[in-house]
């Protein structure tokens, strides 16, 4: 791995990392270490919430890997997620679980590659709705395929994988996503992505194969979503297309990422955690007005925090810097 090019203040280095990056890495390791202890402390409700948070963290972060820098809002997460689930649901009797995870990754990447190539000419809202439509198409085809070819079984995922295992697997996946994200950010690929996100024409005229970069990133993102679906299949035990390919999932992933801030690697998780907690609090406290309360909470967030939590943080950080420089 080569060193990042715009060092600026490269006063202190450790295997090619700046002091800031090293601190970031250490913080990350500590957070992950702490997070991985959760199942030892609480195997009940806390763990359930942990699985939910870990799942959305992976999905939102991998979504933001592609959509953050390029500003292409993809609503196809459910398609990858559902396919991953179906790979496990359909193949459990034939292959061991780890192999299925790999297959899910491959299927996700291939599908994302196709979507990527197909959507090169689309932009803005057309891309958004295209991905939504495609996810629905896949769901319809899976449903139809299940009807015409399917046997009555194959949708039950009866394994010995318990919630603890799922949680740890998700954590490993999350760590993997962060590492990939970090690596992309400091590689030429990440630099190219940022240029594309700023101005695609300039990117092309600087020699960047914009199509290739976008498709590659989309494949990474789709593959991760498929693996997430595969990992969660044992938790749901019984898979139906309406539930595996729920469009609500795609929307939630986008919304959590945006609430956190999609332009930083660690942005989405800042959206996922409070969102999941508030969501949960509302479910617990307002069982009969869940939808209403969620809507209200939602609007409060949208209007009070226009640029996500990251945007909020950056605003105050900038203010602090002004104040510090003055002092």
């Amino acid at each position, binding site marked *: 791995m080569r060193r990042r090019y715009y060092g600026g203040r490269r006063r202190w280095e450790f295997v090619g990392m700046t002091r800031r990056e090293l601190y970031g890495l250490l913080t990350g390791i500590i957070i992950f270490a702490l997070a991985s202890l959760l199942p030892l402390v609480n195997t009940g409700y806390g763990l359930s919430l942990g699985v939910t948070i870990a799942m959305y963290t992976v999905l939102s972060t991998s979504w933001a890997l592609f959509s953050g820098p390029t500003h292409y809002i993809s609503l196809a997460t459910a398609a990858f997620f559902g396919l991953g689930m179906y790979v496990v649901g359909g193949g459990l009797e034939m292959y061991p679980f780890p192999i299925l995870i790999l297959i899910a990754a491959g299927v996700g990447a291939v599908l994302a590659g196709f979507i990527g190539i197909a959507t090169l000419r689309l932009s803005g809202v057309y891309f958004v709705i295209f991905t939504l439509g495609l996810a629905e198409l896949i769901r319809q085809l899976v449903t139809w395929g299940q009807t015409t070819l399917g046997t009555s079984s194959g949708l039950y995922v009866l394994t010995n994988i318990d919630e603890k295992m799922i949680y740890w697997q998700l954590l490993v996946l999350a760590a993997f996503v962060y590492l990939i994200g970090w690596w992309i950010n400091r590689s030429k690929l990440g630099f190219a992505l940022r240029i594309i996100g700023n101005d695609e024409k300039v990117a092309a005229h600087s020699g960047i194969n914009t199509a290739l970069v976008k498709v590659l990133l989309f494949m990474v993102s789709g593959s991760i979503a498929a693996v997430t679906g595969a990992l969660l299949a044992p938790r749901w035990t019984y898979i139906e297309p309406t539930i595996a390919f729920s469009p609500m999932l795609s929307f939630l992933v986008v919304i959590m990422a945006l609430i956190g801030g999609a332009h930083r690697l660690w942005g989405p998780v800042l959206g996922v955690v409070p969102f999941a907690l508030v969501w949960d609090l509302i479910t617990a406290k307002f069982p009969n007005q869940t939808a209403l*309360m969620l809507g209200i909470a939602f609007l409060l967030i949208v209007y009070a925090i226009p640029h996500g939590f990251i945007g909020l943080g950056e605003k105050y950080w900038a203010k602090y810097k002004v104040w510090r420089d003055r002092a």
Partner: protein
Amino acid sequence: MNKFSFHKPLITGVAIAAMAVSISAVSAETIKIGASAPKTGPLAGGSTVSYWPNVKLWVEQVNARGGIKLKSGKAKIELIEYDDRTNPGEAIKNIQRLATQDKVDFILAPYGTGFNLATAPIFAKFNYPLITHTAITDKIDVLTKRYPNIFFTLGSTTAFSVSVVNILKKMRADGKIGSRVAMVNVADAFGIEMANAARPVFKKEGFEIVYDKSYPLGSPDLSPVIRGAKASKPDAFVAWSYPPDTFGLTAQAKVQGLNVKAYYTAVATAFPAFGGKFGKAAEGILGAGGINPDEAAMKKYFAAHRKVTGKTPDYWASGMVYATFQILEKAIEGVGTKDRKAVINYIKNNAFKTVMGPIKFKNQNNEKFWTVGQWQGGKFYGVSSTGRPGAKSINAKPKW
């Protein structure tokens, strides 16, 4: 416009809603019961008819009696309910929360096959009895071996499809219909399993399936389906359908004059809304489930349900849901404590009198259940069962 002025009404709204949430009064001895099922999302339509009113009814009735009888005295029920928004992840979390945060004594089974299966591991882990009321599966054997605490009351997919075939066989034997069957199904796990189970049985019994198609869940227009079925000139029409399409198919069949002597739609045929919508036209329509509404216990249940919830129960799942609550109640009283393991054992080894008739589990499975019902004179009567008495005779469906 002042940037924040539009927040005020919202905040007021939150405050009002917060106040509106009632806080259950805590008496000296209580028994905490948890419930989680959809109040929103795709399955909410079903659960608000068959599930939630029964929860309300049962809790009110028990508390009006002074509570559940324990050895230490009567314990009133303190209910904790959650909305799973028809999302399995949410359902799992809710059950976990009930078990570990709220530390409830017992949990009522969730609504729908998928949700019962998704949460079964948690019920098992914390030794809660899971008396399902709306789970139909062919994996009963596997699941009961895996989870010693799960109980099935509604039967298996095969039993349901076989009894439909048997009814048609009987009608054919009586000379009411011929051998031509048009079969359609909703392209969802339920519809697919049913159709797959029925197909070989029809063939074996010498029926000719002249039309065999599926349609996606949420099809806005089912007229091509009915048109296709009608064109195949069937003697009987069988649809493994879900609530919205049960209504849609029947409306189309009526308008297009699909006149068959045996007309069957699956889930929601037993809903009061079905009878309400189609009125006289519902006469003679066959559907999944059924009860004996003329039985005294059932009549009493219907009256109480109407009085407490203001709604008519449906003629199938409602009674079953209520029956499972009765089983739980009697099992707790039989044991006399909140000991969940003992309650599970009690359920396994005893017979229970319920609104649906006596229920006794064999290998955690109730083998006596209604499978097919028919609208007769404005009520939905059970006409076929696996060993329930009181089945009405089957009428040929009149023309629309």
